[in-house]
């Protein structure tokens, strides 16, 4: 299959990006809202209680998708950073910047819902378990990344430095993940969802979980597009102000 890659990259032209997101964003947002709400409503009200966990099992529909998003958003930032370093598309750098805050929020949601679930189930809000600790470390990486964006005035310099940080940080995040596994044995159960059906959760929980995950993904896409648009507008505003200042001088 022949793909015209040049046409593909044209989507990243800021003006073109603004045009197609202007049309696509309302659609994606509505779709995200519908699927997000229906996934959660299905999960909360139309699934049976677990025979051992009771109704606390329902926090799963927020916890698992947000945890997945927390990791995948970092991966998306890594790809966007690479695109910025290689091809220097501004939209890419701004998308990485926009995604970071969402990723941090997802990490926090995963940690907090996990703590709320952990208290009745494990008898503790927090345990230095590998998975929990890895998420705490991921949160630190998000905070550092965002702080570096905030600290640098020149947007191009900021984009360069944060991209390098994202690359190095990814390596160290994975390294930490396995170092933490080495450091302490876990309390957290294995993955609840996998494509391997043998060790999967029951279908009753599986389908609403899939819908909830799709909802979270769409929510992320619409938020990241919205925030990237805001960043582009902020950049244009900044350019206009600079021009005005030059004219006045």
């Amino acid at each position, binding site marked *: 299959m022949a793909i015209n890659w040049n046409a593909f990259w044209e989507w990243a032209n800021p003006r073109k990006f603004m045009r197609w997101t202007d049309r696509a964003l309302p659609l994606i947002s509505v779709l995200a809202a519908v699927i997000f709400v229906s996934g959660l409503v299905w999960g909360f009200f139309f699934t049976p209680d677990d025979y051992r966990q009771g109704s606390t099992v329902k926090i799963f529909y927020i916890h698992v998708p947000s945890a997945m998003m927390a990791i995948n958003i970092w991966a998306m930032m890594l790809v966007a950073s690479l695109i910025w370093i290689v091809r220097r598309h501004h939209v890419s750098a701004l998308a990485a910047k926009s995604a970071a805050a969402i990723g941090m929020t997802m990490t926090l949601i995963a940690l907090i819902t996990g703590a709320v679930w952990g208290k009745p189930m494990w008898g503790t809000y927090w345990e230095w378990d590998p998975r929990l600790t890895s998420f705490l*470390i991921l949160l*630190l*990486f998000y*905070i*550092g990344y965002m*702080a*570096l964006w905030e*600290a*640098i005035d020149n947007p191009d*310099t900021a984009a*360069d*430095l944060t991209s*390098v*940080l994202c*690359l*190095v*940080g990814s390596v*160290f995040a994975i*390294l*930490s993940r396995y*170092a*933490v596994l*080495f*450091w302490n044995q876990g309390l957290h159960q294995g993955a609840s969802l996998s494509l391997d059906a043998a060790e999967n959760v029951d279908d009753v929980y599986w389908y609403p979980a899939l819908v909830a995950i799709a909802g979270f993904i769409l929510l992320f896409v619409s938020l990241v597009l919205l925030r990237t648009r805001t960043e582009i507008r902020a950049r244009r505003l900044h350019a206009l102000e600079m021009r005005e200042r030059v004219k006045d001088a």
Partner: protein
Amino acid sequence: MIRLLWRDITLAFRSGGGFGLGLGFFLILVTLVPFGVGPDGEMLSAIAPGILWVGALLACLLSLDRIFALDFEDGSLDLLATAPIPLEGVVAMKALAHWITTGLPLVLAAPALGFLLHLDSAAYRWLIVTLLIGTPALSFIGSFGAALTVGLKRGGLLMSLLVLPLYIPTLIFGAEVVRRGAGGFLVATPLAMQAGITLGAIALLPFAAAAAIRVALR
């Protein structure tokens, strides 16, 4: 490159502070811990490996901003960037100088401080070995953090925020070696992992740090 190394070492010695400051900080930190957790010998010896490693880490962090900041301010970093030796080499030499002036003294002082914390006698050997292997990684990772924040006005706090999460794997394996050494267990696995991290950091991070400095000097 050797001359650059000497220059940085002599600068660190003569400007004062760089050399003694880290050690003094390490000593104070170790002194503060018993005040915080109580003078119970058994408890202290249980937490000694961790305290010594965290102390070494923080002492190392303290002097990181000196790696590039002074040279950036007086313009010598621009000269070094345009010098015939590659910037990656400059960064590696500066990190090495940082290790010799900060990491090595920490390695030498750690046994004495371990004594203060009732460190298990079997663990001294491993404390020295693991610090010797691990502290170069601290200097090289730190040089990357320092390179990222070199042009910033208030980079110090931001740098600790960026660098400390990167120190986590080194800390985990380092403290694990000492803990296992104290208990008389096998130390080969964490030691090998730590050596791997150090070698990887030495091999790769100068490139990342040099890229960051080029951006800052642009």
